[in-house]
């Protein structure tokens, strides 16, 4: 056997081997789950008080299907008219594989996100705890629930029921 092959075999336990990925989606598109706005999912919080957003709805995270989650979430409109979903500082959830943030009128998502039912993906969850904001597309401002959802396995991780905030 050639020395190069021996060297390769010896290095495998040290370096490991990258797995090969195969896309199995029938259409080659995003798995019947609607677009994931990965590039525009979060917006910076500039902290300027004169540009304070208006709260539209608030809720508290609760764990689903055995997973834990806590903390607050607010749906808010910036002075420029854009709408965002803001996770409060106390947000904390269990880290799971493939989490995305979803707004939906549905109280249960089950094993699939359904754009036809009004589900809107806001993007991949940036981190499992701490403050973060996600841009909300037009038409999703009236969602009754915010979700953290394991997209690949189709599992509900956390849900927040969004209650409208009364205007002052």
């Amino acid at each position, binding site marked *: 056997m050639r020395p190069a092959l021996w060297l390769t075999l010896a290095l495998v336990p040290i370096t490991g*081997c990258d797995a090969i990925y195969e896309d*199995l*989606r029938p259409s080659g598109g995003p798995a019947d789950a609607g677009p994931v706005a990965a590039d525009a999912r979060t917006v910076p919080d500039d902290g300027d008080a004169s540009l304070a957003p208006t709260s539209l709805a608030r809720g508290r995270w609760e764990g689903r*299907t*055995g997973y834990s989650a806590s903390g607050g979430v607010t749906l808010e409109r910036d002075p420029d008219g854009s709408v965002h979903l803001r996770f409060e500082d106390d947000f904390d959830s269990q880290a799971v594989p493939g989490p995305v943030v979803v707004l939906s009128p549905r109280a249960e998502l089950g*094993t699939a996100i359904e754009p036809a039912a009004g589900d809107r993906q806001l*993007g991949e969850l940036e981190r499992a705890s701490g403050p973060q904001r996600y841009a909300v597309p037009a038409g999703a401002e009236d969602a009754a629930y915010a979700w953290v959802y394991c997209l*690949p*396995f189709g599992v509900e991780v956390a849900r927040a029921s969004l209650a409208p905030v009364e205007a002052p």
Partner: protein
Amino acid sequence: MKRAALAAATFAVLCLPASTGEAQAWTRDAGDGYVNLSYRYLGADSFYGNDGARVGSTPFRQHAIGLYGEVGVVDRWLMLTLGGDPMRRNELVDLGATTGLSDLSVGAWTGLLVEPFRLAFGVTVGLPTGDPSPDAGPGADTVAQLTARTLPTGDGETDVTLQVAAGHGFRIPDTSLELFVQAVLGYAIRTTGFTDQIVYRAEAGLRIREPFVERFLLIVRLTGTELLGSSTAIGGVAGVGDGISFTALGPELLFEIGEGFGLGFGADFAFRATNLPAAVALKGSISYRWDFVPPGSES
């Protein structure tokens, strides 16, 4: 042929498991060995969540080619093992799949007792040869990247498991029934922040010493893993990573073809688990066992 005859002649009831399968408590003599090539399949439409409840999910399929080997180095005192999946494919139906090498494990066992029962101590090291965070490749969209990362073929950490195995084989008086029992208990020291685990296995085997039927060995096996503490970060449900616990039960039927070769068919089901697919795992295998015959002893 003389070699085969000698191997058969040295077969004893107390060596029952060692002749036909993984035999940690029965450490092999120097030069003796056993290798097993298997295919495993698992298809699940739900999995056990972090609290142990079954949760419906995207259909998951796993195909794996497994390789396991044991070789004796020093009579009773040292046996080396190697195990892993040269090919493992994790698939989320109509979504994506990863294929690659799994983590490998190498082990060393030493026999502490031979009588009145077998007792052995082993150290197994898990090597991170699999891919803990597969990549969907450049240009892949977010769904593909999320899916790829959800289907690791390894856990990315080196771990050490200390194990004790006890076994005993015997014939029921006035019958043609031979039995063996084996229990393995271990402590898995995990690294990179993973939670340590207790691993265990208990199995019982039955053989009927009658013509032809004696070629079959039926084994019922209970296997499990328990977490020593709570795990907060769940890496996935592809069978690797942190937060996994389970208790599984299943039968396996082994058939000795002859000349050291054997076939095996088995199934097991985790009736309680966390962060694992909920499905029956099916397994088929072919094995080869050899007994070292010192030069000159055949004449």
